[in-house]
């Protein structure tokens, strides 16, 4: 069937709470072609994991899901309602953030990998175990035969994440969702795991959704990037375009929070002041306006829609960075010393040394 492998249209996920309805995802749309990678980037609470869980049918039953998602033309949410047995874990699989907790502590590694093969592909015990060994080898685990009969606690964090990846790959999925796959790992291991995912994706022609809070992670790995904030898509563009012509102030701010190898040493990082909003009430203006150094009065009353900024480049902003309007807005705010939302521009001048960001409580 022609068309994208995955098409998500106006996805909305809400949770009823005592304080009101939390709109965790509020109108997200994207297409993902077979064999392509899309990076979804945003802070904690931006709705990226909820988007992934909605697609994986992992949300609790009280979550209210609206909108549509089609996988190879098949309606994902209809399959969820019909309790489709051999879709999740077979065609669409997921790798989770924390390998220390995402493996069952009382089951042998081999059994856990073989389980999908046995349940979905009806393979015999021995055959499935042999295949589990092959998978362990593919994810770069030494002595796979020996590992099969080990328990998760006998492996290191990096190894465990490789096991989780092997589990996700067992039934040769067409789409792999990786939700912050390296956040819980040592920095030295992170790159290995990301490269491994990338290599496997290429070798298998598999599509991937790579979820991260780190723009640096998607650079060079994703074909397309979607930046999310408070449940909304802020900016979406082919990766190269995004890094070359960043339009959204939030994307720009995110990038400035990341240490980069190509900037002079001792360059200080710029934290984004404030925290993401609690998305309980319907927001009138732009959700990022209170933390944005470009914000103009319009931002407080009108929620900007996604507008085109070139081929495949969408951005939801009234005063996009790098445009004439944006430059004027920022200059105006700097001259006034405060933004339209009342944010003290001094906050941006206070650049924080990298060491301070790593202190407990320093991370947002």
């Amino acid at each position, binding site marked *: 069937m022609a068309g994208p492998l995955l098409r998500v249209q106006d996805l909305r996920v809400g949770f009823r709470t005592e304080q009101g309805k939390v709109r965790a995802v509020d109108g997200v749309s994207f297409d993902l072609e077979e064999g392509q990678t899309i990076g979804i980037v945003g802070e904690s609470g931006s709705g990226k994991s909820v988007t992934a869980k909605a697609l*994986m*049918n992992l949300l609790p039953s009280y979550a209210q899901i609206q909108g549509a998602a089609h996988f190879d033309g098949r309606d994902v949410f209809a399959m969820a309602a019909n309790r489709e047995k051999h879709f*999740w874990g077979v065609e669409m699989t*997921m790798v*989770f953030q924390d390998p220390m*907790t995402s*493996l069952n502590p009382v089951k042998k590694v081999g059994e856990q990998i073989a389980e999908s093969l046995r349940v*979905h592909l009806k393979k015999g015990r021995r055959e499935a175990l042999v295949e589990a060994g092959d998978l362990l080898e593919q994810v770069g685990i030494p002595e796979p035969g020996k590992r099969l009969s080990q*328990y998760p606690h006998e492996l290191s964090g990096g190894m465990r994440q490789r096991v989780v990846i092997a589990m996700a790959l067992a039934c040769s999925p067409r789409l792999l969702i990786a939700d912050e796959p390296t956040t819980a790992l040592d920095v030295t291991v992170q790159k290995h795991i990301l490269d491994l995912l990338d290599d496997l994706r290429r070798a298998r022609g598999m599509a991937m959704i790579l979820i991260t809070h780190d723009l640096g992670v998607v650079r060079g790995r994703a074909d397309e990037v979607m930046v999310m904030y408070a449940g909304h898509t802020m900016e979406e563009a082919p990766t190269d375009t995004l890094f070359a012509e960043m339009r959204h102030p939030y994307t720009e701010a995110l990038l400035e929070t990341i240490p980069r190898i190509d900037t002079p040493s001792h360059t200080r990082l710029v934290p984004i002041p404030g925290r993401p909003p609690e998305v309980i009430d319907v927001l009138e203006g732009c959700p990022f306006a209170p933390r944005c150094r470009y914000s103009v009065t319009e931002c407080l009353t009108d929620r900007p829609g996604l507008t085109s900024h070139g081929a495949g480049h969408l951005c939801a902003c009234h005063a996009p960075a790098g445009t004439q309007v944006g430059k004027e807005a920022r200059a105006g705010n700097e001259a006034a010393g405060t933004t339209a939302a009342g944010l003290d521009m001094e906050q941006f001048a206070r650049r924080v040394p990298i060491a301070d960001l790593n202190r407990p409580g320093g991370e947002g």
Partner: protein
Amino acid sequence: MTFLARRLAFMLGVLLVTTFVAYTAMNALGDPLFNVVGFYTQVDCDAVIAGEAEDVVGTRPGSSLGECELVAEAREKYHLDDPLPVRYVRWIGAMVQGDFGESFKNYMPVSTILAERLPKSLLLMGMSVTVALVVSIPWAVAAAYRANRRLDRASTALSFGLLSIPGFALAIILMYFFVVRWEVFPSRFEDDDLFSRLRSLTLASLTLGLPLSAVYQRLLRTDLITTLQEDFVVTAKAKGLSDRRIMFRHVLRPSLFGMVTVVGLNTAALFAGSIIIEQIFSIPGIGRELYVSIVRDDNPVVLACVVIIVTAFVLINTAVDLLYSYLDPRVRRDA
């Protein structure tokens, strides 16, 4: 292997301490001689035997000589003139060789009494535990799966109901319906074959097992609900596994810890604590024997029962510790 050796040493230690305490208590808090011969301990028997004194207690003149000879005989037979530690060592030495002594009252070897009583109590214990587990595990799984929904609420009410009925009341209710009205089960213990034994013990095992099943259900339900929050359950769901498979293959085993601990403690206690139930259902088991022996001051039998119960306690708890390492491989290292 070292684990087993250590457990064995521990078990021996516990047995030594408990038997010593029990033996000392039985011998020091009451006079064993009195338990054998009654009030003749009050008579100066040495003088009577030597013909220097008259029997002051006896009602039949001249009969005291024979009785006093009995006292002397008992003293020698039970080595009552030896110091307590010596007697204890002698007693335990004999016990290790399978000689529990003989009853003060009917002079039967204690081992014969035990051989007859023990299997019935063991069978009752086994049946009660089976009832408790067979009822509680599916019950807990069903309740945890639908936690806080209507079914779970109803089951909570039922479990509190079962917990608050006293054992003897449940026994009487069951007896009334199944023995008196419908005559499904016999009213006394029938010892013809295994089937009749099982049948005779059914109501008693329900009486013991059902309240326990309520306790186990509460424990397991809570642990299941906790385990269901774990990340690896999300992983299992993402693998596209059915709820049933996730529950039984992924969630149940790591949730059994709390319950297994309590099952271990309760099972051993069942052994000692089924005294009332054995009495009500007239089951000739250890509990009933212990009760009767305590009332009759039958020291050797009481002590033998204590040894049996303590052994059961330690053995069952060792089994529970072994089960831990089966349930969770992370325990195996430092076991």
